Each structure stands twice: as structure tokens, then as C-alpha cells.
């Protein structure tokens, strides 16, 4: 219960942050040259000024900035994100259609990066300054330096074009009519390369943090106590060191959530995944500012939700948090 109360307080504290983002973003977008109507008109192949004015009135673009901001925030409370002129649907609908692919990709990439990073970090720390450590640390450096979009393209060349192990893009085989388990498997096959691509840099970060954290914890007094107790090295690592060393990793999930969401823009574009990131890219290109603002709002909510979960996890791992020590 105290854990929940604590996380709830953290959640409440993020409300002003959310408001700050929305107001900032809304005002920023007012500076944009051209609005949705301009974009719409361009798409329709031009039109006269009267039509433009009518459209502006229709979309409420003729009001003052403060009024529009107020209206926008009021509508957000009812989760009404506005209407996308480009897609011809409510923004909320467009985003909801795109959310599953992004969520799936993020969960997959995070799990891949977290667990492999954990294992490699532990291995490197247990063999510090010997060849397994050197190998793992070098790989970590290389992964960190690899631009994800480039890695994605090269993976397509190798695994899709030459070896033909995995599909080169898309979320599932369109028109194959697959259902149930077969569809799940098909989606999984489509997600392998995007997951590797998005997760690579986070794998590098996690393994580096885990290695450093392990070395740090191994030098602490209570590990010396554990040695003095006559515990086996395995027991010392699994029972005493691991949980302590994982704390910075868990913190990092929350801090990196936004970066990962940003990374999905590029990865989803490379692999033509119908996700939130590619939607963001498309709305920038098409100047669909309503949709862009909606994506910003949903992304912020997503990051806050992830941080909420991370807080819960952290409080579960570290009893000192709850007692406020």
C-alpha cells in the first residue's frame, strides 16, 4: 500500500510536467509557418482564399492563441485530440491504430536490451580485465557507436535480401489472411529485425551500466561481509550483488523511455512499421500539426506511465524507498 501511495505521489507530481509540455508545444506550433489548412489546400491542389477562410473557421483556427490553447486543454481532459485533416479521422483514432505496433516494438526491444545487457554486464564484471570482459566491452562500444537506421538497412541487406530469413518490412504479411497463432508468429518474424535495430544501442548502454554497477557493488562492505561468511561466489553474486547492482539499470529504463520512443521514429520508418514513430514522421512531412501535437501528448503519457511502473518496480526492489530513508 505504501508503495502504491509513493508511486501515486510521483504520478501526481508529473501532472505539472505534462501541462508544461502541452502548453510549450502548443505555443511552439503557433510559430510554424503554414497550418493544417495550408497543408490541406496543397494536397487538394490549391483553392481560393474564401475556401481557406471557411476551413479555418471550421477547424477553429480563426480564434486567438489563448482561446485556442484553452479549448485545446479542455478537450484533452475528455481525451479529444482533435481531427486530422490529412487522414480524415479523429487524431485519437489515428493514434490508437498506430499504438499497438509501437508498444510491441518497445516492449520487445526493451526486454531484449535489458536482459541481454544484464547477462553480458554480469559476465564482463565477473571476468573483469580478462578476454571475456574485453570482448563484451568492445562489442558494447561498437553497438553504441552504430547508428540504428544504418544497422537496420544493413540487416535488411543481409538477413532479408541475401539470406531471406526475415521479412524486410511491414507489421505482418498483408493479404495472407493469417489468424491466431500463425498471425502471431508472422508478426513476431516481422519484429525480429526492428527489435534488434532499436534495442542495439540500449543493449550497449545497459551492459555498460550493469558492468560498472556490478564492479561498484562488488567493492562494497557488505560483499566483504558475505565473503567472510564463507558463501560461494555464485551465491554472493546471485543473492547479494545482483539485486543491488540492478537498481541503476531500473532507474535507467525510466530515463531512457523517451529516447527509446524517439528511436522508434527512425526504426519504424526503416522497416515500414505502421507505428506511432512513423506517424510522427509522416505528420511532419505532411504538416499535420494536430496529429503531431496528439502524438506528443500520447508519447508524454506513455513516458509518464513507464516511469510510474519503474517507480513501482524500484520500490519493490529497494525497501529503503518506502520508508523514505
Amino acid at each position, binding site marked *: 500500500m505504501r508503495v502504491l501511495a509513493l508511486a501515486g*505521489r*510521483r504520478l*501526481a*507530481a508529473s501532472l505539472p510536467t505534462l501541462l508544461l509540455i502541452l502548453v510549450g508545444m502548443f505555443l511552439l506550433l503557433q510559430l510554424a509557418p503554414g497550418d493544417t489548412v495550408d497543408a490541406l489546400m496543397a494536397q487538394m491542389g490549391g483553392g481560393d482564399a474564401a475556401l481557406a477562410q471557411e476551413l479555418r473557421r471550421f477547424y477553429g483556427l480563426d480564434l486567438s492563441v489563448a482561446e485556442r490553447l484553452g479549448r485545446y486543454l479542455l478537450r484533452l481532459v475528455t481525451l479529444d485530440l482533435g481531427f486530422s485533416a490529412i487522414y480524415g479521422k479523429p487524431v485519437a483514432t489515428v493514434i490508437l491504430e498506430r499504438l499497438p505496433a509501437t508498444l510491441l516494438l518497445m516492449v520487445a526491444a526493451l526486454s531484449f536490451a535489458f536482459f541481454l545487457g544484464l547477462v553480458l554486464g554480469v559476465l564482463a564484471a565477473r571476468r573483469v580485465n580478462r578476454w571475456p570482459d574485453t570482448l563484451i566491452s568492445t562489442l558494447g562500444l561498437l553497438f553504441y557507436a552504430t547508428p540504428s537506421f544504418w544497422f537496420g538497412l544493413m540487416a535488411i541487406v543481409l538477413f532479408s535480401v541475401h539470406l531471406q530469413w526475415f521479412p524486410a518490412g511491414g507489421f505482418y504479411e498483408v493479404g495472407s489472411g493469417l489468424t491466431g497463432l500463425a498471425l502471431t508468429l508472422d508478426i513476431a518474424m516481422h519484429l525480429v529485425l526492428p527489435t534488434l535495430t532499436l534495442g542495439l544501442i540500449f543493449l550497449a548502454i545497459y551492459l555498460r551500466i550493469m558492468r560498472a554497477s556490478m564492479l561498484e557493488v562488488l567493492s*562494497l*562492505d*557488505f560483499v*566483504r*561481509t*558475505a*565473503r*567472510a*561468511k*564463507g*558463501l*560461494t561466489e555464485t*551465491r554472493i553474486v546471485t*543473492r*547479494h550483488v545482483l*539485486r*543491488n547492482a540492478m537498481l541503476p539499470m531500473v532507474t535507467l529504463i525510466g530515463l531512457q523511455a523517451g529516447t527509446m520512443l524517439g528511436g522508434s521514429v527512425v526504426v519504424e520508418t526503416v522497416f515500414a512499421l505502421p507505428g506511432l514513430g512513423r506517424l510522427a514522421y509522416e505528420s511532419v512531412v505532411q504538416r499535420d500539426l494536430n496529429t503531431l501535437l496528439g502524438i506528443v501528448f500520447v508519447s508524454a503519457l506513455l513516458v509518464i506511465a513507464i516511469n510510474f511502473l519503474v517507480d513501482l518496480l524500484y520500490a519493490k*526492489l*529497494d*525497501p*529503503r524507498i518506502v*520508508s*523514505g*530513508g
Partner: protein
Amino acid sequence: MTGLRIDNLAIRLPKGGDRTHALSGITLAVAPGEILCVVGESGSGKSVTASAVMGLLAPGLMVEQGSVTLNGQDLLALTPEQWRTTRGERIAMVFQEPMTALNPLMTVGRQLAEMWIVHRGLSRRDALARAEAALTEVQLPDPAGALNAFPHELSGGQRQRVMIAMALALEPELLICDEPTTALDVTTQAQVLTLIRDLQRRHNTAVMFITHDFGVVAEIADRVAVMQLGRLVEEGPAAQVLKAPQHPYTQALLAAVPPLNAPAARLAGSGEPVLELDGLTKTYASRGIFRRRKPVRALDGISATLRRGTTLGIVGESGSGKSTLARCVVGLMGLDGGAIRIAGRPLPPDRQKAAHLAQMVFQDPYASLNPRRSVGAQVAQGPIAAGTPRDAAWAEARRLFSLVGLDPDSVRRYPHEFSGGQRQRIGIARALAMKPEVLVADEPVSALDVSVQAQVLALLRELQAQLGLSILFITHDLRVAAQLCDEVVVMQNGRVAEAGPVAEVFTNPRHAYTQSLLAAVPGRAVLEG
């Protein structure tokens, strides 16, 4: 031969250090049922000796020659797997820092139960039952509750009891204690020492007790070994070493222990008041909207007076509020109530004006100087900010350096080039540069070795005589207070328990708390008797 035997042990240091060996030619023995105290200052090699016996030498250290045997078995020949079954089972250890020696994420019960699970193969339930019995034996209040507690929910003394329970869990033949009471308050220390001695008698354990404190030695030792720079300089029965030390180094160390009996009343009570504290209150309230904490009354109506040219001691244990008091007097913290008057005027809120009224000497010689600026600059910066021309301020810094016994040419150097004692001298020079009305000294010698401590105390006395300093001296160490202070205030939980001339308070304590503090000072019976 039973018990622990160390024969002609030599341990090499890695190349490039200031000496080649951490230990050379150490020969020691501890018999079952006996407590051997290994005494020395920092760098004497006493902790390396303990690590060597435990088989936990720091990387880079190497046994060059000699042998270590426990009840006839050669410890240095053990394989790692044999070491693992020996540690905890036959040799156990209690460390200095109770705050960090336990895993913060694991309950006390599970950490304790591990001993029986790993070494005896007991089930978790049986092991927890044993753990509860062990916690009862070390007299922890509510042992059943402590099983489910996390380390941060226990006090330092309680954690050290848990460590002792853990060490004695499997009735080891040898117990190594590495400064187990150094981090504890004096009354807690007395309780823990009694506990160790009782349990050791009951289980007939051989104990190797590492300490720097001759008071503790006098309390607990059967025999004493004195170490200096990796060598054994003297060894013998406790009574003999403490009463009739043979080696000059032992004699010097014992002479440096400040006697608890204060010298006969000095000029106390003559001068006019220079610092007046009147009903000071300070509460650490809950801060922020989202975090609630129990408010703590750090100061609860403190009144005291320091007279010009004298020293007023503020003594008490941790949590008594003595450090908060020091911080309030120099203006680092605001008061909730009451008034501070220095030289008749209230403490001004303006930092620069207050600088000439009160200055402070800090506890930690390593944290109290900025590592990235020359020491002279740190002494001269205060006067320069107050308007003294740069050249004059530097000249003054050089003069102050020679006044506190440092080479005036060393003003251009950086803090890392100085020893702990020298750094405290620099700290004193920095405070004196502002020519303050009151010098606040917050535990200025508690981080120093006993011989260095004696030198710094002597310096403070000299400076007081020479410059007529008025000193507010904060300390937890009653021996130090007895040596330096004219009057003393005993603080407990933010209140004044007792106040008066030091000779009177220490020889004739009226308050029960003062009495218990004095009774807990280690080694009183032997060293003063």
C-alpha cells in the same frame, strides 16, 4: 598448539608505495578464550594482519614468508574451496562500519539464516529459528521483529549486534574484530564491548581485536600487541603493557591519550561574555509537499555563555544536536527561535559582516579544503573578499602558516600534499585569518590519530594563550573535552542536561545522563586508576 599462531609473517606491498612491506616479521598468538588487542595508528598494518588471517587480502598484497595456523592447520595453504568452508565456520569477523556491512536489500533474518543454510544445510525455517535465538543471545530488543527488519530500520549499535550474532553463529574458533566500536557512540560502545566479552567467555572463543583506542584496550584486552609501520614493537599482558610500557613508541602513544581528569580550574569565569546563546530552538520539519517526515527537535531551548579568552565545550552523543548548534552559531543554519549574540550584538544575516564574528574549524581534514585551489588562496580569500588588499592578505596567510606551525612557503601548494594533521592546521589558519570574535571547532581532532590529535590540541591551547581566543569546542570525546575546555555543556536530545566548570561536571556529575556518559568512557578504571 591450539588457537591462532602467526609466525614471522611478511606481506609485500605493490611496487611504488612509500614502503615495501605492509607487514614484516609479525609473530603473534591468540589462545582459545583469550582476547588479544592489536593496537596501532593508521598505517600500522593492524588491519592487514586481520585480512591475512581471514584470507581476504586486498588485491596486490602478497604473503612473502611466514605462516598462519589455526589449531594446527596451516591457513596459508588452504585452497579457495577450503577457505570458503573455513570462513564463517571456524573464523568469523566483525567489521568497523555497521552502516554498510549488511546487505541493504535483504532482511536481517535472511542474512543471518544464510550461515546455517550454507554451512549446515538447514532448511530455511530451521535456520530462521536459529537466527532468532542468536538475536536473543546478543540482547537485541524484539528479536522476532528484527528478523523481518531491513538493516536501515536498525540503529548502528543494533546492526553491530546483528554482525556479532552472525559472526558467532557457528561458534567459530577465532573471532576477528576490526575496530567494531569505532563508529558507535560511547554508551553504545560500552554495551557492545561488554557483549563481546561475555559471549567470548561463554563460548571460549579466541578473539583478535583490532583497535586504535587505548581506552578500548584497557576495557577488553587480556594481552596487547602494539604495531608501528608494519612491525610489532611490543607484546605482553594487558596490565603490563598499559602500566609499564617498555617500548618508547608505546610510551608515546599512551602519553598521548588525554587524561579524563581535568586540570585544576584555570581562569574560568573571569572574562566578559563574548558569545551568548539564549533559548535556541531548531526543528527539522517535514519538507516538500509530497514527502512527510517526523519533525526532529535538534535544539530545544539551549542557553549557554562563552566568556572571552576561554573554551566552552559542547559534549554529547550523535543526535544530541551539538553539530546543529555549531552550524547555527556560524550562520550556516537559521534558527527557529531564541537569539545568538556575539560581542553583545545579534548575529547579522549578512554573511560578510558575520564573518568577523564567528569562524569554524571542521571535522574532516580531507573534505574541509578545496582540492583544486592552493591552500594559501583558501586562507587569503576571506580577507580579500572583506576588502584587504591581495598582497597584504597573502602576507597575512604566510604569517598565519608559521603561527600554526607550517612552512610559510607552502602556501602555494595544494591540499593533497599535506597530511591530515597539517590540513587541520591549515583549517585553523583559515579561520584565524578573519580575526573572529569566536572560533567554533566542530570535532576538529576526532578524525586524527591519537599522537597527531595531541599535537593539534596543544596548538589550540598555545594559540588561545597567545591570541586570547574564545573557543566553542564541539566534541563527543570526554577525554578531549577535559583537556581543552574551561566550561562544559552536556547535551542530550537537543537539551542541556548539565552545564558548569569542566572539573566540577566531570568529577561530580549530577545529571544521570552525564554520569552514564562518564561511566562509559573506555579504560577509565585502568588508565586513570
